[in-house]
């Protein structure tokens, strides 16, 4: 089976990104905002409990937020 036939066979399954191009800025900005707010809250009380309840969610939000934001500004990673 040639690769072109594989392409034709997959016509019903076009690739769609997790967040469409139009939504990247909103998603990225909000995630980064959440990360900043959570980081600020962690800064008020740097306890081990807060590291888990605020630090980890802030890191997750920053990680995904950074990826969507860089895509939103035109650097498609």
């Amino acid at each position, binding site marked *: 089976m040639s690769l072109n036939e594989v392409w034709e066979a997959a016509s019903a399954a076009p690739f769609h990104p997790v967040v469409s191009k139009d939504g990247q800025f909103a998603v990225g900005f909000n995630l980064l905002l959440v990360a900043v707010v959570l980081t600020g809250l962690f800064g008020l009380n740097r306890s*081990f409990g807060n590291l888990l309840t605020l630090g980890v969610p802030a890191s997750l939000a*920053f990680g995904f937020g950074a990826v969507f934001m860089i895509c939103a500004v035109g650097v*498609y990673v």
Partner: protein
Amino acid sequence: MRFFTATVLGLLVPSLATASNLTTPYQIAVPADFKPPQVFRNTNLVRNTNLEKGYVRETINVVVENIDKQPQSQYYIPFSSEVFDRVGGFEVRDKKAPEKGRFQVEVTEPSSGNQYFVVHLSEPLAPKAQVTLGISYSILAALSPLPATIKQNDQQFLTYTFSAYTPSAYQTVTQKTKLKFPNANVPDYTSTAGLKSGADPERKGATYTYGPYDTAKVTPGTEYPITVRYEFTNPVIAVTRLERDIEVSHWGGNLATEERYWLRNNGSKLANHFSRVEWTFANYQKAPSSAVRELAYPLQPGSVDPYFIDDIGNVSTSRYRPGNGKTAANLELKPRYPIFGGWNYSFKVGWNSDLSRFLRKGAGADSHILKVPFLQGPKMSEGVQYEHVVVRVILPEGAKHVRFETVEGLNSNGLPGSNQIHASLSGFKTYMDTLGRTTLTLEVDSLTDEARDAQLVVTYEHSLTDALRKPLTIIAGVITLFVATWAIGNIDTSIKKR
């Protein structure tokens, strides 16, 4: 901490980007005095030479008969060693069954001034049986301007020299050559004497026919030089090098294309200095010119964010006419200065497209199929020749099991056979990369804009772990920062009795 170390190390383990169909061009070794075995005879040969563009496009239809006692499958096609490297998009098909696709073609090393394309017929030809071969190729840089220098608004003339007898490794019974000029203004051409009865060439408008000749007694390899000189007041656009990057972004849902051109006009050089006043007048009258004035660059529907940059910076003398999503978009590039004969211009153009038009999910959970144009480039009536083309398909980080294929249709796609394309895999590091992106590099010599419609299919595997590598790396870094802040904050630095 052990978790973070394990995560970071896990992300940094290089993936084995294996591909099973990478190709490297090779040449078959032959003895220095190699002569192909005389097992075939060309019963009838018609060569069509098209000179309408800035390169030579030839199609040869030849009826081949096996005159040996054994079935034969290897048909040799000779070119002189100087021309061989400039032969592009070489393709041979069975003229009566073009849907069966091209025959496999290999090339030999130079021997006694010649180099051969070896055509492997799909089925051996039985003794006394015949097959009609359709051979098509382009020859780059075969046209030379005469006079070599002209004034700015003068007409330009090109010369082309070839042999009245089509170079063949085998005896040819009858043959003729049809030349198609861009117009009927052909001031000089060789008239043959003694090759056939009657006028040779026969002229009909812009078409000149040399032959038919009865060459049953002419030794293969005999030459009868013919030179034609015709008007071609158009630029002879040659791209000495084209680098084309196609970058796939799964996160962004984007296909970014960037092309870097090193362009040259191979036409007549200017006899005097460039006059801007004359140029403005000629432009106003829309007079034909040997200079590149504008490059029309059709883009696929849905292309957005185009840019046109040269060594100085953004070139504002360009227009972009976006399509309505279904019709093709058009990029009209006006170089910073007109490109006259012998002048160079290097620039880059780029644009974005939605990835969903070009990428599909395969049968396996991780498999992806990408289908992109192999070559796009300007669409000019005078044609564009590419001396060296490098196409880089930059796949997402962690993509593996990369395979590629150029799509073959009923007609020639302008590309050489896949065994003449140099393919390699490498890494490419850019923003937010830890391992570097898997990059498939395809290199081809001697292409023309006949390859504009050629399509490239690439399949690869890319898992969820590969996709999450970017955010997870950032997350690991930020968590490390939080832990460090917490740990450092817990260090008791107060001054007190211990």
